[in-house]
């Protein structure tokens, strides 16, 4: 039986005097990857931020059966993890400590780290291929390395619902494929992954379900092959879809998909 991890009903978000999300409804399920796509300014990132509790809204958001509006910051952080497109973090914090920040919502009053916290951090570092960066300062990392560390921080929260805003932006092809393999593995482990993507081919290749937005409204929602189809794509983007285009890439056949490792350096 499919378990619903996230339910969004009639979501409306107003920023200033402009309605940027208008009556969007969808569901996301445990064990699946869901892509949110649409042209610039469609409201993709706004929807993710709203689910993460960062923006006021009308409508209902239900996370693991609980009304998101009723959750405290800590309760929400244990249920869902959010990785923004651009992190404001630029401090000389050791990578391991950045990832350990994901355990904050599990800490007591004094925030003493436990063995469970250490294990969660180790696992998150391992799954994102960032263990070797553990002693490095975060502000000395490349953009792509920072992205992976922030995903590790999200994994360390132990939340089953992961919200990622353009996680593959600025990643090279190898690391982007490794990232999608990781997202697939996480879904296989029972996580629900909701990710904003810009590239239609990434959504087509890696998402089970897709939500297509335009002007803050839901244009199409359902299994990815039904959404990334000729008509919706032409209507929203004004382009003609060419299925099975000649140019593409996949993990090297002899290596199989790299779920945790980056490209050889």
């Amino acid at each position: 039986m499919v378990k619903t991890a996230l339910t969004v009903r009639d979501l409306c978000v107003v920023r200033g005097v402009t309605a940027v999300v208008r009556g969007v409804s969808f569901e996301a399920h445990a064990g699946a990857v869901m892509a949110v796509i649409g042209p610039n300014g469609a409201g993709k990132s706004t929807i993710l931020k709203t689910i993460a509790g960062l923006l006021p809204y009308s409508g209902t958001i239900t996370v693991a059966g609980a009304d998101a509006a009723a959750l405290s910051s800590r309760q929400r952080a244990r249920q869902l993890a959010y990785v923004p497109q651009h992190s404001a973090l630029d401090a000389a914090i050791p990578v391991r400590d950045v990832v350990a920040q994901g355990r904050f919502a599990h800490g007591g009053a004094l925030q003493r780290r436990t063995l469970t916290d250490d294990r969660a951090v180790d696992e998150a570092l391992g799954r994102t291929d960032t263990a070797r960066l553990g002693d490095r300062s975060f502000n000395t990392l490349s953009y792509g390395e920072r992205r992976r560390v922030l995903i590790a921080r999200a994994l360390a929260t132990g939340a089953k619902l992961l919200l990622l805003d353009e996680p593959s932006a600025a990643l090279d092809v190898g690391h982007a494929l490794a990232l999608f393999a990781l997202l697939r593995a996480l879904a296989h482990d029972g996580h629900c992954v909701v990710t904003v993507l810009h590239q239609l081919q990434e959504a087509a290749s890696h998402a089970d379900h897709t939500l297509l937005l335009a002007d803050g409204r839901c244009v199409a929602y359902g299994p990815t092959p039904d959404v990334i189809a000729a008509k919706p794509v032409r209507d929203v983007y004004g382009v003609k879809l060419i299925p099975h285009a000649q140019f593409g890439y996949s993990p090297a056949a002899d290596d199989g998909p790299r779920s945790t490792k980056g490209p050889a350096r």
Partner: protein
Amino acid sequence: MIRRPTTVYLILATLGVAVVAAALLLGQGSLSDPSLRGTLLELRATRIGAAFLAGAALATGGVVVQGLFRNPLVSPSILGTTAGAQLGGQLSLLAFAALPQLRRIPNVGAELLLPLGCLLGAALALGIVLAFCRERGGALMLLLTGFILSSLFLSLGSFATSLAQDTWEVGRAVVAFTLGGVGGVSGRQLLLALPLVTVGTAAAWSWGRTLDLLLSGEEEASTLGVDVVQARRWITIWVAVLTAAAVSVGGNVVFVGLIVPHLLRPFVGVLHRRLIPAAAFLGGTFLVACDLLARTVPARSEIPLGVVTGLIGAPVFLILLARSRHGLLHG
């Protein structure tokens, strides 16, 4: 690579012991005279205690506001918090003199009202800065708001000082407090400041992990489980407590909260639970050293403590400003 702070703590401890020993042994009056030795040591120990507490409080406050505002160029004095605390202290002295009802309350003296006035003044100043600047204020906005608040509070303080001149004793007390320094601190004042600094520093340390998360910005910190509104409120209160304690025993001592965190970060890193104890210790040691300088440098009279820290701090602050010019221009 990030250095392990144990060595830094050991160096700080050695430095602290050396400075405190020098501050006990050096100064006007000879310890070789047995009839003066006890009195001199007691006076110097009180000064050392007051300077250490004020320095520890200001340096800890500096670390905390720099984390809260995600800006290494702010400190309680730059943000106008110390000026606010000073104004609160001046007004409390005036209120004590003007209201006979206050003087009739048993065990309530000006010494008790002074920290309370400082606390209210510091909290008001920090509240205004937070309301104006918050997350997206930018460095320039923060510095300008702090400058305007400092100017306003110092002007109001001058007005309060002029009002105090109607009565000689009150005028003298307000002027002495305004000039700052730890020379006239009594044992009772020290006992009042000690719990404020201890509790304030411990509380700041306990908010260390939250401050670490706030380095990612309030939005990211919120998604990781930080109740940002509550955190901001409590951290502001503890900074106000620390600043009030420092000002009540040392007056308006500037730049300590700015310089000390900067000196330490390259050696202990930016994590607040490592930085706060080191800053408290170095801040205390630094102000004891400044006080030693203030009372041993040949001059017609003792140099006010705030003058010494200002002479050292102003050039250091200018260097920091020059280094981060790009960051300032781009908010």
